[in-house]
């Protein structure tokens, strides 16, 4: 281990001895009776199904689980032989959401934040800030606005903030789950460089194994309640435990969970046609111009392209939620079914049976206090008879495996459950067309497979599907056509967008 002069720290050891944690208000512990030793300098990939307590373990190591009022701890969780909660500064944590962990408005201040908290003298702070920004490859002035960073840059900033504190233990909780493919590589490479230079112990949680495999020298798999399923060298664990890992929703390297069968004989039919369409989220500020595309019933159209190119705005416009800035959006008679004009003129209730939308973040579209009530919102707005509302709700609860959760508040569901529920709410009113914004983002392989099957089943029923996605596996295995949006050369923000549409590789 050869620590970088400005970043180095003694690598930390982790020791869990019969450790467990029960979150306040829960009956069963998230982690129960775990014994685990991580030696200084080890690089660990921590895997497990959702609900296996891997995040809880990571937060425990970071010492941020809170005190007695937030949950009950059993056993001991030690960093260098001292309780984790008492070793602030020895460990650093990077979280999943790039938007929710930027503390300060300027890049330099954000990195300095942790150093200030640790009481580092001012003259020592700025050299460490510069070294940390350099190590993660963020070549920006210290007073650059953090609001203008991309997702990948924000995650690297969070990493720099952690790194400047010279932690002996770096903890990463799905740091790349919310990033586009370019952002994933940016962050992964930054972590690799940091690990090399600092020699710190690191533990990363991530569903997509192949991203991190080149960096780690140990894989630990947790089962329900934090039970240790497998532990060892990456190759051995992935080979010997492939079946269990697959069942736990882990993405095994170069494995796509499911391939869609080719569309059946049922003919495609045009539902919606965009003609030189300009789209804007804020009126008067177009983000994308001149899009020509057709949405077919019985087809799955994938919309791809880099972050910020206007994919989501296009999707929301096709869905009749945003008014086009220019061009035309023509609904064919099969979609319009008597509704007048372009889709953005339709009434909210008219949209229900015509175009369903699943938002990128499910929380934005939840309206009710329970899963069942959430599913009933659409059918009730259509004023369907009570028996029909019940029948549709029951069928969806069952087919999306939500029946056990019907009384639960949607906000308390897991990520995969929220995603399934948000799709189900759109299906409850049986729209002819479905628009999905990043349906597979951050999902484990099991949820991915369920969503893929569901979307293909809709296709076979003649529904037209539009999916905005970064997920190449989804494009390859599920979509029929791809609309790839490009950022025009020279202009970073607004200009006529070159769009190309073509058959997806299948």
């Amino acid at each position, binding site marked *: 281990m050869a620590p970088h002069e400005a970043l180095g720290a003694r690598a930390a050891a982790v020791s869990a001895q019969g450790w467990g944690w029960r979150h306040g208000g829960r009956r069963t512990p998230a982690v129960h009776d775990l014994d685990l030793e991580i030696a200084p300098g080890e690089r660990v990939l921590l895997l497990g199904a959702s609900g296996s307590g891997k995040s809880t373990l990571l937060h425990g190591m970071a010492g941020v689980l809170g005190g007695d009022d937030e949950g009950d701890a059993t056993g001991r969780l030690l960093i260098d032989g001292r309780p984790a909660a008492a070793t602030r500064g020895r460990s650093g944590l990077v979280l999943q959401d790039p938007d929710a962990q930027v*503390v*300060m408005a300027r890049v330099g201040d954000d990195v300095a934040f942790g*150093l200030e908290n640790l009481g580092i*003298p001012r003259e020592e702070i700025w050299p460490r800030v510069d070294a940390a920004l350099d190590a993660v490859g963020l070549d920006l002035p210290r007073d650059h606005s953090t*609001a203008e960073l991309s997702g990948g840059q924000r995650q690297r900033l969070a990493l720099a903030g952690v790194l400047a504190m010279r932690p002996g233990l770096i903890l990463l909780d799905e740091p790349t789950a919310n990033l586009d493919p370019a952002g994933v590589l940016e962050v992964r490479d930054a972590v690799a460089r940091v690990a090399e230079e600092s020699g710190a112990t690191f533990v990363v949680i991530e569903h997509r194994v192949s991203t991190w495999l080149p960096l780690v020298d140990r894989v630990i798999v947790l089962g329900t309640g934090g039970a240790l399923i497998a532990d060892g060298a990456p190759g051995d664990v992935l080979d010997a435990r492939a079946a269990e890992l697959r069942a736990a929703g882990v993405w095994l390297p170069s494995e796509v969970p499911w391939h869609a069968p080719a569309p059946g004989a049922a003919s495609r039919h045009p539902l919606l046609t965009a003609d030189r369409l300009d789209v804007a989220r804020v009126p008067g500020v177009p983000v994308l111009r001149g899009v020509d595309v057709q949405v077919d019933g019985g087809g799955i159209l994938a919309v791809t392209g880099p972050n910020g190119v206007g994919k989501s705005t296009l999707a929301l416009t096709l869905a009749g939620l945003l008014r086009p800035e220019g061009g035309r959006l023509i609904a064919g008679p099969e979609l319009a079914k008597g509704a007048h004009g372009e889709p953005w003129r339709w009434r909210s209730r008219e949209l229900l049976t015509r175009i369903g939308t699943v938002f990128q973040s499910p929380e934005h579209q939840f309206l009710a206090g329970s899963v069942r009530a959430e599913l009933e*919102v*659409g059918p009730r707005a259509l004023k369907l008879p009570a028996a029909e509302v019940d029948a549709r709700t029951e069928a969806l609860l069952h087919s999306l495996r939500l029946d056990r959760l019907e009384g639960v508040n949607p906000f308390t569901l897991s990520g995969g459950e929220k995603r399934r529920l948000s799709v189900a709410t759109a299906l409850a009113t049986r729209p002819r067309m479905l628009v999905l914004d990043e349906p597979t983002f951050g999902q484990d392989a099991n949820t991915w497979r369920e969503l893929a099957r569901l979307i293909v089943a809709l296709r076979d029923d003649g529904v037209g599907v539009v999916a905005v996605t970064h997920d190449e596996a989804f494009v390859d295995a599920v979509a029929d056509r791809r609309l790839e949006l490009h950022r025009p050369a020279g202009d970073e923000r607004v200009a006529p967008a070159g769009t190309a549409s073509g058959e997806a590789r299948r």
Partner: protein
Amino acid sequence: MSIASVRPGLPLAAVNPVAKVAATVPLSIVLVLTLDPVSAAVAIACELLVFALVGLGPLVWSPRTLPIWIAAPLTGLSMVLYGAPSGETYWQFGVIHVTEGSLLIGLATMTRVIAIALPAVVLFLTIDPTDLADGLAQTLHLPSRFVLGALAGLRLVGSSVDDWRTLRLARRARGVADHGIVRRGLGQAFALLVLAIRRGSTLATAMEARGFGAPVDRTWARTARFGAVEWSVIAVGCLVAAIAATAAILAGTWNVVWAA
């Protein structure tokens, strides 16, 4: 969202925000003590002159100050219509009396609102929230947990604006956007609150993981200076207050509110 913007490149932007806030206090005290048109009119003239001299003139006439130019005449008008009647009555309708006295009070009130609000708004536009937090914590020694917590929370305002927009679209997509604007607005506001709390708690975890609230003496990466420039800014504020008061006394219009 500009509310958490990086230090604006405006004149006085580098001055400690505490000094800028302090500079507006003496004039506010003077203008609250007396209710007469002369003091406030002189104050406005001085303010326009000072802002023009330091290069903040364009900001005074920018849309950012528009609310003042709208609110001040409205406040004045209500005093004209409903203020304590005295002197000659020009017009009367029910409880409305427009008299010589109420016209004077209306004018005094309108100029007062402008004289107090204008420097507050213009100076605040030159303040970067991070600098304000540094000033509050280092110059005034307010508790850092409170100051930095508020500063971090401010950053969430920008994402809340985006959330609000998305929530509106989502409600349209769910088929519930045709009726009941009030009820829908309330539901949407509640949803926004839930989202803000969730994001806030993630941010709190991220801050805690970086040692926020650790039991050590916090240091500050940036210095909140309080030197000659800061004292000069406060001195200018005092000077404007003194000129306004002197003008009113010389003109014989100085009337302390509770002595009237």
